[in-house]
């Protein structure tokens, strides 16, 4: 281990000497040649040390192989240093293999891994483009870019003074990206971090924190959305309606399956799916609803499942005014104990009833549905389907309060057409 350390130290020193020498580039001075002779004993080939005007470490990476000269030439202090490296490695196909190839390219290029911090930061930025942000072995590969054991503090002074702070920050960035995407690190990550930064370093501490909290959070959600979401729209609608309903006895009915019919005269009729859900409690509520009062079909409301957004519509009634609320419990309702304690406790000066926006009373929701299209005709078909199990709907007036739904933002410069943008629901409401 000692000889490896000495090798690394020697390399460092020579690299440091290279930084200090800001003199004419490319000139081999005699004393440098001496050291290179000294280094000649080492089996590794000597690399010429160049000192450049810019302090950026990427410039200081010596070219061992001449065919890489043209790579250096293109990279002359560009603001995004390693972008072309990734461009070149992917050759048009952005996937895990090309990303790993890019990382390997960087690692092979220089044993000192100069510019590794910039490279790692660039790699972390590029991961979403290549689609590898949720792959743990890619993160381990990125961590592998760090030179090992160089950044491990060896005495108490080094330990006190935040040894190699930029590298530690870079390690923390890697772990932070892992945390943001919710990827649990594994043993290899731990081994790598320990090897690179040593114990009691910031990245290792962050790793420990990750490993404390992530197992707790992993199974914290009692209703997790599966990673592989269903593709079939009817199945997806059924799954999301059951998620919204949260009543295990609710029944899902498919009122219409999606199909495309081609009639005899060549006309195409496309039918979109209509999937509805209603629980027995909701059915009872609807049966007790007063048919003189209207029920409203409202929608679409968005429901986000990881990255997909589905829209659902609800059938609801208005909350009853306080006079019509049937809350009076007969004093003779229960033989055994008083169901209501009739103590008139007055509110005191400081017990005022404030208005809480979150606790506004809403009317009952009778049923919900998801449909392929959000127009009145499709939803009317849903209501027709509901009528079979809730005959009271045939006598109740149904009012449709439909917002136009999700659409692209229209940047209209014309003020006249701005009026047309008012959704139909407003007109409908005004008519009412």
């Amino acid at each position: 281990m000692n000889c490896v350390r000495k090798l690394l130290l020697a390399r460092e020193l020579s690299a440091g000497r290279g930084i200090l020498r800001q003199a004419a580039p490319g000139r081999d001075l005699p004393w440098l040649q001496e050291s290179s002779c000294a280094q000649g004993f080492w089996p590794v080939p000597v690399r010429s040390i160049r000192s450049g005007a810019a302090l950026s470490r990427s410039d200081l990476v010596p070219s061992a192989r001449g065919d890489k000269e043209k790579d250096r030439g293109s990279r002359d202090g560009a603001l995004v240093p390693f972008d072309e490296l990734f461009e070149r490695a992917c050759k048009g196909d952005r996937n895990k293999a090309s990303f790993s190839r890019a990382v390997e390219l960087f690692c092979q290029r220089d044993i000192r891994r100069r510019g590794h911090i910039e490279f790692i930061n660039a790699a972390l930025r590029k991961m979403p483009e290549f689609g590898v942000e949720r792959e743990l072995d890619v993160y381990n590969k990125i961590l592998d870019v760090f030179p090992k054991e160089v950044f491990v503090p060896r005495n108490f002074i080094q330990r006190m003074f935040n040894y190699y702070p930029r590298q530690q920050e870079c390690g923390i960035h890697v772990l932070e990206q892992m945390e943001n995407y919710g990827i649990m690190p594994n043993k290899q990550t731990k081994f790598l971090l320990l090897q690179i930064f040593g114990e009691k370093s910031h990245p290792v501490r962050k790793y420990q924190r990750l490993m404390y909290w992530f197992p707790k959070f992993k199974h914290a959600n009692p209703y997790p959305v599966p990673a592989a979401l269903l593709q079939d729209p009817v199945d997806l609608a059924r799954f999301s309606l059951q998620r919204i309903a949260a009543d295990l006895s609710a029944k899902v009915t498919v009122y219409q399956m999606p199909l495309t019919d081609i009639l005899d005269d060549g006309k195409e009729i496309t039918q979109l799916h209509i999937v509805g859900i209603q629980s027995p409690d909701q059915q009872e509520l609807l049966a007790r609803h007063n048919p003189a009062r209207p029920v409203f079909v409202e929608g679409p409301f968005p429901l986000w499942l990881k990255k997909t957004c589905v829209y659902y519509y609800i059938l609801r009634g208005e909350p009853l005014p306080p006079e019509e609320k049937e809350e009076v419990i007969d004093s003779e309702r229960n033989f055994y104990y008083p169901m209501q304690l009739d103590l008139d406790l007055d509110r005191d000066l400081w017990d005022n009833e404030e208005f809480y926006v979150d606790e506004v009373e809403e009317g009952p929701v009778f049923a919900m549905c998801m449909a392929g299209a959000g127009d009145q005709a499709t939803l009317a078909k849903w209501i027709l389907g509901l009528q079979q199990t809730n005959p009271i709907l045939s006598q109740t007036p149904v009012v449709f309060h439909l917002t136009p739904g999700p659409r692209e933002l229209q940047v209209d410069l014309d003020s006249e057409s701005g009026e047309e943008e008012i959704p139909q629901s407003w007109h409908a409401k005004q008519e009412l």
Partner: protein
Amino acid sequence: MSGLSLLLRAARAAFPPGARQLRTGGLRSAYAKELFLGKLRKEEVFPYPEISNEELEEINQFVGPVEKFFSEEVDSTKIDQDAKIPPETLKGLKSLGLFGMQVPEEYGGLGLSNTMYARLGEITSLDASIAVTLAAHQAIGLKGILMAGTDEQKAKYLPKLASGEHIAAFCLTEPGSGSDAASIQSRATMSEDGKSFLLNGSKIWISNGGLADIFTVFARTEVVDKDGAKKDKISAFIVERAFGGVTNGKPEDKLGIRGSNTCEVHFENTKVPVENVIGEVGGGFKVAMNILNSGRFSMGSASAGMIKKLIEMTAEYACTRKQFNKKLSDFGLIQEKFTLMAVKAYVMESMAYLTAGMMDRPGVPDCSVEAAMVKVFSSEGAWICVSEALQVLGGLGYMKDYPYERYLRDSRILLIFEGTNEILRMYIALTGMQYAGKILTGKIKYVLTTC
């Protein structure tokens, strides 16, 4: 707070002692309810209500023959096996006058006070089926007539009921209404001439349903409010089997109290004359509440009697059986079991007689909360103690040759009938809080208006 009670005490002291009987209750014997206000009414419980010497002698006279009867002529094992009480046993009970213990003497009963009734309950509980048959007959079956009946009704029905010629039953439970008794569906519609009701409905799990001739039935009647609105209220009726239309199903096969006859009773267009309404039409709620609340306290003494007998039998076994060269009674855990049984029996007994004593005081005291407390504690205590007694005997306790398994099965029903323990717990809590709440809000109002 103390001002009010001082006022009340002064008011009470102002009345001559004889006038106490005019009071219709309320403040008297509100011992448990006062606990909710944080007040201990020492005069209710200290000294412990004791009966006079004459009463004591009277009771001892009764206790002797009854104990003799139960120890000699009642074969509990046979009753449990056949699921039937033999008619000779019933006749013996009738001749002892046990069918009319609380019926006043002018109607042919024994006219016992609550304390004496509780004392005899201790003995009858040795056979649970007989105890339940007697309780269903008198504690709930004829209590309605006794408490809320008119003099004609009492004169007509009580003599035969007290002698045991007719047996009474209490019909409230329906398939859809157990604890939710106010949701019964049986209906009594007034006939056109307004002289009788037509009763329609079916009741389940009626004790004595197969033997009874007189039923206290609860049904819905249409009442016209003083505002003119029509409402459905519950009324109580005395229905004789002779009215016709009364059928009962076959006796149910039960886990315990197998000797008691429990069956369904169906009423089909039974004609009930208007005179047979207990209380008033639409006043069934009050009648039911009073009946249910009054019969509960005797469960305390019944359970205590049963546990005392069990302690006797189990102690005999524990002192003779030797394991590991030691008597069972030398083991600490076995001694703890006996301690538990003794403590529980003592508490049950004292609670039951305290409540009975409070109820026996002049006036019409309201001890419903105390009675509910007695029932809850005694039923749970009995279940645990019987289980522990069986445990002391180990494998022998499990065998049908010994009576412990019968006692265990019989004591399970104590937690369920006469108001399930859960319902009674709610009753105790809510009634107490309602009482305390009313008084405290009244005081707040007083403070706010005067200050």
